[in-house]
C-alpha cells in the first residue's frame, strides 16, 4: 500500500490553560477527501495550522507527504495548498491580479495550471477585472480556492471554506471538491455544517480538541444504535421540556423546527407519545420516524462523552 499522505500522531497543543488539541491521531491516504466536522472552537483551525506548518505542536509528530511539519516546513510549504478560515485575498486587487499574484509567488503561471482550476475559474472569469472586495461570498470562496490550487499542490487544506457562504454556493463548492479528487489531490476540509459530512470519503468528528470518531459517513450513520422520532408541535419551547417527561426516552435534541427524540431499539411508542403531548395541551402534533443523520450521531457521541 502507498504511504499515507497525512499522518498525525498524538498531537497536542494548548493556548495557556486552554487545550485546543488533545492527543489527536489519524491518517489520511493519498487522494482522499477527508472531512473534519465539529462546532466552532473544537480545535479544527489549530490542527490545520499545525499541518500547514504555521503552528508548532506542543507534543506529538505529524507528517505531510512523508515530510515532518516541524523540521521540513520549507519543503512542505512548496507542496501544500492552504485556504485559511478568512479568505486570504487582497481586496484592492482584481480577481485576475489576485490569482496571478499567488501563481507568481509559487513560481508558476495561470496558464500553466489552467486545466486544474478551469472548472472553477470559468465561473468567476466574467468578473476578472472586478476587485476582490466587491465579490459576493460565494465568488470570493471560489477565487480563494483557485488561489490555493494554482500551484498544483499535492495536499489541499481547506479550513471552513463554506462558512458564511449561501446554500447554493456551498453545494457547488462540494461538487468542485469531488471533481478535484480526480486529480489525485489529498483534500482535508473542515466544516461546522453536519450536512456536508456525507459528501466526504471519511470524516472525523471532533469536539473540545478530541477526535470522537473517524469513519466513513455511511458507517457512522449505520452505527447509530437508537431509533429516532421527529416531533413537531405549535409550541416548540414547551415541547422540549414536555418530551423529557415521557418515560423510556433516551435523549431529546432540538434540530431546527423539530425535536429529535431517540429511543432504544424496539417498538416505537408513537401513539403513547402523541397522547402524552395532547394531554400536555399541545396542538398540531406531528410525529414521524426518521433515519439518523450525521448530526444525530454527533449529538449522541457528545452526550456519551459528557
Amino acid at each position, binding site marked *: 500500500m502507498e504511504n499515507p499522505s497525512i499522518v498525525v500522531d498524538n498531537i497536542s497543543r494548548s493556548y495557556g490553560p486552554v487545550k485546543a488539541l488533545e492527543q489527536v491521531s489519524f491518517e489520511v491516504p493519498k487522494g482522499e477527501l477527508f472531512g473534519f466536522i465539529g462546532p466552532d472552537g473544537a480545535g479544527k483551525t489549530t490542527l490545520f495550522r499545525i499541518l500547514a506548518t504555521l503552528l508548532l505542536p506542543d507534543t506529538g509528530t505529524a507528517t505531510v507527504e512523508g515530510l515532518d511539519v516541524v523540521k521540513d516546513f*520549507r519543503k512542505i510549504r512548496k507542496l501544500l495548498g*492552504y485556504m485559511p478560515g478568512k479568505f486570504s485575498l*487582497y481586496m484592492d486587487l482584481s480577481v485576475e491580479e489576485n490569482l*496571478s499574484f499567488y501563481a507568481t*509567488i509559487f513560481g508558476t503561471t495561470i496558464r500553466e495550471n489552467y486545466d486544474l482550476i478551469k472548472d472553477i475559474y470559468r465561473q468567476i472569469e466574467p468578473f476578472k477585472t472586478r476587485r476582490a472586495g466587491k465579490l459576493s461570498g460565494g465568488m470570493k470562496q471560489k477565487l480563494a480556492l483557485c488561489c490555493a490550487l494554482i500551484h498544483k499542490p499535492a495536499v489541499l487544506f481547506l479550513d471552513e471554506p463554506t462558512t458564511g457562504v449561501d446554500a447554493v454556493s456551498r453545494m457547488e463548492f462540494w461538487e468542485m471538491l469531488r471533481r478535484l479528487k480526480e486529480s489525485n489531490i489529498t483534500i482535508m476540509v473542515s466544516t461546522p455544517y453536519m450536512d456536508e459530512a456525507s459528501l466526504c470519503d471519511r470524516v472525523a468528528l471532533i469536539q473540545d480538541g478530541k477526535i470522537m470518531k473517524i469513519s466513513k459517513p455511511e458507517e457512522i450513520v449505520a452505527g447509530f444504535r437508537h431509533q429516532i422520532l421527529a416531533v413537531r408541535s405549535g409550541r416548540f419551547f414547551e415541547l422540549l421540556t414536555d418530551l423529557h417527561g415521557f418515560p423510556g426516552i433516551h435523549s431529546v435534541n432540538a434540530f431546527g423546527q423539530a425535536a429529535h427524540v431517540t429511543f432504544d431499539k424496539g417498538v416505537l411508542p408513537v401513539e403513547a407519545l402523541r397522547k402524552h403531548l395532547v394531554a400536555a395541551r399541545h396542538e398540531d402534533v406531528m410525529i414521524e420516524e426518521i433515519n439518523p443523520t450525521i448530526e444525530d450521531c454527533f449529538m449522541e457521541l457528545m452526550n456519551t462523552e459528557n
Partner: protein
Amino acid sequence: MKRFTGFVIKEFYHIFRDYRTLLILFGMPAVQLLLFGYVVTNEIKDARIAIYDASKDEVTRKISEKVLSSGYFILEKNLKNYAEIGPTFREGKTKLVLVFGSNFAEKLQREGKADIQILGDASDPNTANILVNYASGIISNYLISVNIEKVPMRIIPEVRMQYNPGLKGVFMFVPGIMAMLLMLISALMTSLSITREKELGTMELLLVSPLRPIQIIIGKVIPYVLLAFIDSCIILGMGNFVFGVPIQGNLILLLFECLLYITMALSLGILISSITSSQQIAMTISLMALMLPTILLSGFIFPVENMPVILQVLCHAMPPKYFITIIKDIMLKGNGVSFIWKETLVMMSFTVIFILISIKKFKVRLA
C-alpha cells in the same frame, strides 16, 4: 527572482490604488513645507506699535519716523498720556509701546542723554524679545548717525550671521521637515503595510508560500524607499527653489545620506511591525514613539544644548538628530564627508541594529 518581482508589483498596486495614502505621501511634504516656511516663522513684519511722545520735538519725530519706516512696525495709535499704555496693551493689537520722555531734544543736547522707554507685550515672550531688539537697534543706529562727529571713539561691531545671513526660519525647517516626513512615511507606512497583511490573514498564505521572510521584508520596503526618496527630492527642490535654501555641499552626498536615513527609518518600521500584530498598535507606536521625539528631541525646534542632561542623553539616542546635523552641515555649510562621517556611522549602526533585531523577531510561523 520572478516571485520577488511579482511581490513588489503587488505592493505597488496596493499603494497606487489607495489614493488617500498617495495624497498623504506626495501632498504632505509640499503642504508642510509651505506651512512651516510661510506661517510658522520667527521673522516679524508689520507689528503694531503705539507711541507716547511727551516732547514732540524734532528728534523724537525723526526717531519715530525711522522706526515706522523700517518695515517692521506700523503705527497703531499715538497715546496722549502715560496712563493709556495699560489699556492699549490690554486691547491686544499693540505689541510694543515707545515712550519718549519730556524735553527730549533739549536734554539730549544739554546733558548728552535722554529718556526713552520701550515696552513690549511679553505675554508672547519670543515676539516681545525680537520686537524690542529691533526697536532698540533702530534707535541706537539713528543716534550713532546723528552724533557721528561728536563721539571721538567708538566700537561698532559688525555682525554677520554665518550660513544664514537673513536668519531665515526656513533654513531650519527644511532639514527638520525632511527628518520628520521621511521618518513618518518610511516607518509608519511599512509597519502599517506589514500589519495589514497580518490582520487580513493574507500573511498566513505568504508564510506558507515559498517566499522567504527576507524576500517578504525587502519586497515591502522597496516601494517605500522609492517613494520616500522622491519625497526627499520634492522637499529639497522646494526648499531650494521656493525658499532659497542653498545646497552648498555635494548633492550626491546629500542624496546618499537621505537614502541612508530612509533605510534606517524603514528598518525601524519593520521592527515595529514584527513586534505588533494590529495596524492600530503599529500606528500608535509609530506616531508616539517616532513623531514626537523627532520633533522635540532632535534639535529640529529646540536646541539640544539647552535641555536637561537626561533629555540630552535621550536626544543622542534619536536617529533624526544625526540626520538633521548631517543635512544642515551639507546644505548650509557645504561640509564634506570628513565632517559628517561620525554621524553617518551612527546612522548606519542604527540601521544594522534594527535590521538584525527584525530578522531575529520575524516569525516564520504564526504566534
